[in-house]
């Protein structure tokens, strides 16, 4: 468990499949923030995906197998932290529901769930962080991703940390709590509806007149960034961890390498 020399808690970083493949800089930013909150970070190699694609498609058997794999991968961690409300919600709220009540697996999943936190909620609610290493001067607006907001009640935490950055101004947009239309497989199965939803979202983003749109979930961010990019908007799209950690070397999501 925790490092006996330093007594720092050992945090297993669940990077999420999207961060792993599409935007590893979010994972590096998350690690930096967790270390800043005086924890040791480990990244188990045996992690892949939280299993939501199977779970939300009705394939409970595969979702359960992936849940057990993830739980095993994070044995020995004091905390399990994910830079995503959706994946953290899956680990925390849904893993126990995949197991038969009263079974050993259910007990394991429940014990595991108790250690799981979404990144920003972990920093604020568990570690009591009130300042961050990031520096940024400009305006941002924040989209509350659905699972983080409604399953994990993440609302004030990112705002608390963002407001601690000198020079950063948070401009709230209208309907920041309404779904962007991503919904995982939904965006592929029902692309027309998904597109109509993200169109409303980007209209609200544009009306907020901020330099950057931030959120805590890469799925939503890819959806919003993809739409903003199609609309040739100048508004940059980043994961909130990037700003908080000051990991701004990579261009924003869906932006060309020339825009840093």
């Amino acid at each position: 468990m925790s490092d006996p020399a330093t007594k720092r808690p050992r945090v297993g970083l669940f990077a999420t499949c999207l961060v792993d493949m599409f935007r590893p800089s979010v994972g590096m930013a998350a690690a930096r923030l967790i270390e800043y909150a005086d924890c040791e970070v480990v990244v188990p190699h045996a992690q892949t995906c939280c299993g939501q694609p199977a779970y939300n498609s009705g394939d409970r058997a595969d979702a359960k197998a992936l849940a057990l794999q993830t739980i095993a991968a994070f044995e020995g961690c004091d905390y399990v932290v994910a830079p995503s409300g959706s994946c953290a919600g899956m680990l925390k709220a849904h893993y126990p529901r995949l197991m038969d009540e009263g079974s050993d697996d259910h007990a394991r999943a429940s014990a595991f769930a108790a250690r799981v936190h979404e990144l920003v909620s972990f920093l604020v609610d568990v570690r009591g962080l009130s300042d961050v290493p990031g520096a940024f001067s400009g305006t941002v607006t924040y989209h509350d991703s659905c699972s983080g907001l409604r399953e994990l009640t993440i609302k004030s935490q990112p705002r608390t940390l963002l407001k601690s950055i000198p020079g950063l101004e948070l401009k709230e947009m209208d309907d920041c709590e309404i779904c962007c239309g991503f919904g995982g497989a939904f965006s592929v199965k029902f692309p027309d509806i998904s597109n109509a939803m993200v169109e409303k979202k980007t209209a609200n983003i544009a009306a907020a007149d901020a330099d950057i749109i931030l959120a805590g979930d890469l799925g939503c961010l890819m959806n919003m960034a993809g739409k903003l990019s199609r609309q040739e908007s100048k508004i940059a799209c980043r994961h909130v961890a990037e700003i908080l950690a000051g990991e701004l070397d990579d261009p924003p999501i869906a932006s060309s390498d020339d825009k840093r």
Partner: protein
Amino acid sequence: MQPTSHDFKSNARTALADRQLQEALSGIPGGLVAQRRAARDRLPEFDDLRDYGRDLRNHALQHLDIYLERYEQAVTEAGGHVHWASTGGDACAAILRICQGAGAQLVTKGKSMVSEEIGLNANLEKAGLEVVETDLGEYILQIRHETPSHIIAPAIHLTQGQVEADFRREHSQLPKDRRLIDPAELVDEARQILREKFLNADVGITGANFLIAETGSSIIVTNEGNGDLTQSLAKVHIVITSVDKVVPTFNDAAALLRLLARSATGQEITSYTTFSTGPRRAGDPDGPEQYHVILLDNGRSELLGTEFREVLRCIRCGACMNHCPVYNAVGGHAYGWVYPGPIGAVLNPGMIGIKEAGNLPNASTFCGRCESVCPMHIPLPKLMRHWREREFLEGETPFVTRLALKSWATLARQPWAYHALSRLMSRAMKFASGRHGAFTWMPFASGWTGGRNFPAPQGKTFQELWAAREKQAARTGRTQ
């Protein structure tokens, strides 16, 4: 009503391209949603009341058999008749029998979603009866030959301009130069037309929001008073409702009414809340000579014993659809059957089958806004997921989806292979995107790229970056 839920995707596309519909739908956030929020904010104990309501409905459903029998007994004692109908066909037949027994020609009708569920109007009309909808929204739909697109605001998909045009076309006997600009003028005109129907009706049919077991009363809530005229002027009153509506006591119904009005329209109480118990008694100044209640099951008791039981708590307020971003985008008709929105996505598969309605529980991002506003705390996303599980188990999930899912799951359970492929994909996609940062077209995701770009990956995976950092740390002798 012939379901078109299997065509949900094309229904949705049509709806998205319908500018009048989109204009009508754009009023929901500032209307019903804002009104509910204001009503909730005015009642500090709103959330406690929700918990109370949930527990109350759970109790009633748990002892449904007892309360239904008690209700039937109370109705009978009050001089009314209860008719049990296990299917829509049974219910229609019972209603037709009552109408024919009374020698009825003209039937007035209050708003009832159960009557939509059983296709009542078409059934009665086929038998030669004239049926007139008396709720303004339903009346508009009747003259347009449409079905409701919302459970409490049936004509929410229409703009005022469309209604004005309908009235001018339909009420050609009225002066052409009359003013029909304010909503009040439209209401007045409908009232004028309907007045004559009320006075001449042989049978009045209403729905019921709740049934009270202890008194045998049925309750309707309306804002137009049409329900009262429908049920008290005709000599026969028929209540068409379903078995899940029964609550134990008068007080229980009162608690639920407080939640219903606030959740539905943001009112403290609807303009009319009407209780009816049996036919006219000796000495009553008015009321029907006959009082009948049709209790429809139509698959509900079957849901009672399943993982879908919680959906039966629904009190039909419509808050879930008002707050649903999918409903707000496509409106109610796209859902292709009686109940639209999140509640329809859970109810309809139980009534018309998962094969017909399978699209509905899939057409959700699981954003959870429906559950967060449901006065009965129905876990709608969870129940939609259960339908997806049924679909998957019964082999109704499309083959391509199933194959993709299985291949992905097999891979995800082999971390080494998974990470190797992720590295490869990340590189290949980064290479293919050049310096653009996003794709304007993607194979297998052309639906996505039809309306937006697809962001390109950064080129290396997080596992790779982390391994490199660890290696670097080991070389420099740091533990971090």
